[in-house]
């Protein structure tokens, strides 16, 4: 099966600019996640979708971050305007959903490395 696809692989922007990341999950996976991984830390959940609905966005900085999954398949994460502290790897993951993550584990993409200067 094809894995989780993410683009771009790398992105460099200046602070206050906007940026968008794209994710296409594994076919048939109902649940999609965006994680932020700051250098030297483990990933932190930003937002979780079940089909096209938001399940958890409690850690998403909503004043500058937004995400959508309009047709319940691929998703876009946007940052506007970017800050220096947004420099990180943004990982997208998907799972079948409907069961615990033990029985329906996460599959991750290769991430987008964002550098904000």
């Amino acid at each position, binding site marked *: 099966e094809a*894995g989780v696809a993410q683009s771009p692989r790398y992105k460099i922007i200046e602070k206050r600019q906007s940026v968008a990341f794209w994710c296409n999950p594994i076919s048939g996976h109902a*649940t999609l996640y965006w994680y932020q991984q700051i250098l*030297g*830390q*483990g*990933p*932190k*959940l930003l937002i*979780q979708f*079940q089909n096209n609905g938001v*399940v*958890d966005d409690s850690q998403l900085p909503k004043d500058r971050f937004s995400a959508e999954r309009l047709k319940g398949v691929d998703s876009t994460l946007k940052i506007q305007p970017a800050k220096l502290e947004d420099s990180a*790897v943004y*990982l997208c*993951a998907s*799972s079948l*959903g*409907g*069961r*615990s*993550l*033990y029985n*329906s*584990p*996460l599959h*991750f*993409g*290769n*991430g987008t*490395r964002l550098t904000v200067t």
Partner: protein
Amino acid sequence: AQTVTQSQPEMSVQEAETVTLSCTYDTSESNYYLFWYKQPPSRQMILVIRQEAYKQQNATENRFSVNFQKAAKSFSLKISDSQLGDTAMYFCASIYGGSQGNLIFGKGTKLSVKP
């Protein structure tokens, strides 16, 4: 707050030898799950092994096994017969209540396998 702690920022091991990575966690839940993920330079997080908290038996996956000490809230990963391809960041993670939700990760341990 749910926390996962990895106290070894970096470790190294000679090829073919055995290495153990440490992880401790904090929870008041009785139903939870624990995971080890590997992140090579490609950045893709790859599931290595998983453990259900209510199972006494330690999980094993080929050269990878865990030592799950529930009372001590410890979940260490043992890699036997280390290979150069095992060089990566290793993250311990947990999720509570059998949910599909927030997987909590530790800060990771950078493992280098030397020839």
